[in-house]
């Protein structure tokens, strides 16, 4: 049986899949569920819900900021599971938890996977758990029907790409640049990413490929994801929230940004690009 992530890729075959990352509990604990549901209405196909950690060593200043704020807001693992439960009662959007291993270990890995399955989590990304240490969660994930999504980077060898493909389900996360998370100048990413994507496609044959790190606009997304199934945006979205929160109507601004990320034009606006690099079928 296909799970929600696989169903999503089957459905989005004619357009790019957009996955959005938001730190759970940012900007407030009360806002997360409404933000996620709003993202879905405005074009998000997958949601990555970030489990905040005090020492996020793979993240740049933006996600460090949102994580610290969420921790001082009093976020806990159980509150995150509650959020998932609430979202799941209103939506079938695939939900991927993304977080560092330590909070999961402290919660207890068995309890973590049991609870994740119970509330309706579909996948898990652990940036500080490379393939070498993946055995720690592999069996639990399989037992509880949670997809493990591994990351690969431009300096990942062909052999390890194949290994990442074998050990992943749902999709493989291509980190477009060597570095931490954060919005970057699009052209900086574009320069090196094409060759890397080409190599990834050669070695990742079982899973869809999603590309992330550094994407901040519709144009970046089109360029960077032109040969893969989709793209991931995190830091740029959080920057946008940081800029507008807590002005009146701030959520409306954010949803508009999400809509532009996906379609290239504002909600209720007209599409700037009629034919586009965003169509998978015309591009490959």
């Amino acid at each position, binding site marked *: 049986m296909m799970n929600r992530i696989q169903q999503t890729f089957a459905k989005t075959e004619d357009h790019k899949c957009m996955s959005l990352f938001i730190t759970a509990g940012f900007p407030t604990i009360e806002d997360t569920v409404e933000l996620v549901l709003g993202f879905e209405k405005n074009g998000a196909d997958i949601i990555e819900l970030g489990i905040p950690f005090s020492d996020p060593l793979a993240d*740049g200043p933006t996600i460090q900021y949102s994580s610290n704020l969420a921790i001082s807001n009093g976020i806990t693992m159980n509150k995150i599971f509650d959020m998932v439960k609430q979202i799941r009662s209103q939506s079938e959007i695939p939900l991927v938890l993304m977080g560092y291993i330590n909070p999961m270990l402290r919660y207890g890995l068995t309890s973590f996977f049991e609870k994740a399955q119970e509330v309706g989590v579909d996948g898990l990304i652990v940036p500080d758990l490379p393939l070498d240490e993946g055995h720690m969660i592999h069996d639990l994930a399989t037992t509880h029907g949670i997809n493990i999504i591994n990351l690969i980077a431009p300096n990942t060898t062909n052999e390890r790409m194949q290994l*990442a493909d074998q050990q992943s389900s749902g999709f493989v996360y291509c*980190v477009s640049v*060597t*570095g931490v998370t954060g919005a970057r100048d699009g052209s900086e990413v574009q320069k090196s990413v094409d060759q890397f994507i080409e190599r990834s496609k050669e070695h990742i044959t079982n899973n869809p490929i999603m590309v992330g790190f550094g994407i901040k606009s519709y144009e970046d997304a089109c360029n960077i994801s032109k040969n893969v199934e989709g793209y991931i945006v995190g830091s740029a979205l959080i920057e946008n929230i940081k800029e507008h929160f807590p002005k009146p109507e701030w959520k409306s601004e954010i949803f508009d940004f999400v809509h532009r990320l996906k379609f290239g034009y504002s909600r209720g606006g007209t599409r700037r690009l009629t034919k586009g690099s965003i169509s998978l079928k015309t591009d490959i």
Partner: protein
Amino acid sequence: MPEVTIETYQQPNAKGYFGSYGGKFVPETLIPALVELEAAYKEAELDASFQHEYLRLLHEYVGRPTELSYANRLTEHYGKAKIYLKREDLCHTGAHKINNAIGQILLAQRMGKKRIIAETGAGQHGVATATACAKFGIECVVYMGAEDMVRQKLNVDRMRLMGAEVRSVESGSKTLKDATNEAIRDWVTNVEDTFYIIGSVVGPHPYPMMVRNFHRIIGDETKKQLFELEQRLPDYVVACVGGGSNAMGIFYPFINDPVTIIGVEAGGLGVDTNQTAATLTKGKPGVLHGSMSYLLHDEEGQIELAHSISAGLDYPGIGPEHAHLFDTKRVSYHAVTDAQALEGVRLLSRLEGIIPALETAHAFAWLEELMPTTKKDEIVVVNCSGRGDKDMTTISAYI
């Protein structure tokens, strides 16, 4: 003299685990760098010319072997076992840290890396790295918590004088933990041409093993020197433990010997308060900075802020090999408070004319507990890991 064997104690395993601790918990981007490092280190370890160059520099530049000094007045003070001091405070730059910095920079050079980064807490590792980089003419960037830069201003000035760029880290607690996060982020970003010189027996494999091996010369020399002086092994070996590099350096060669080994952690204001850095005494296993070990963290797995009067011990983690030696009870670990450490500084200064670093003073403070339990015909060796000049601002406030 018995052979220093590693026949019975073979740690870590091929995956970098000491029992259940260690491993490589880093982003995938760093895996190629760790694989490359491990291969280069293995090759260098077996290369006689590398070992020769390392030992030559330790001799000519660092001033090794360091003395094993009989502490006659300290011994008289307690009236029990004989106390010897392994004088790492006499190393160039004033602490043991330079042994490792020299070893790693030779490796960096061998691997063709053009840029060195390091993290530092007390500044001793930063100074050691800056020193090695000046000696080798390599670009050097040191990450240091903003709070530590105030506490250890002298070391900041020393690093800058030797041409290193000291980057102030403003995130989190603005101490060693955050400086380490920033150094890892730099490494992830500049992994192609940058070598990260980690300053303690922490981080992902192979660092804990490699740093230990670059410091084992402390224990090897101690064993040899004590045989020359006393024709026997010590009964006790004592060292302070933050991340734990000076301790692993002196402990490792004695692990298979009938020697009582004691590590002394920084208790801060007391292990019953939340102002402590006693990781093994108060912490629980978890993952930070690339390895599984004991950590100070809350119920949610968020890392807690450590506290110690000594910037070098002010760290919520500890090397994975110490975690293993703690679980297996091969080494016993204890904690002493800030106040006890200051008393240790005073005692050693007055009785031996040696002003120890605040880190080192923790080891001396434990003698108050240990010495009454020893016998006159026994021998205690304390690793005098560093000198206290850098701490004079802090110490002055208490004298």
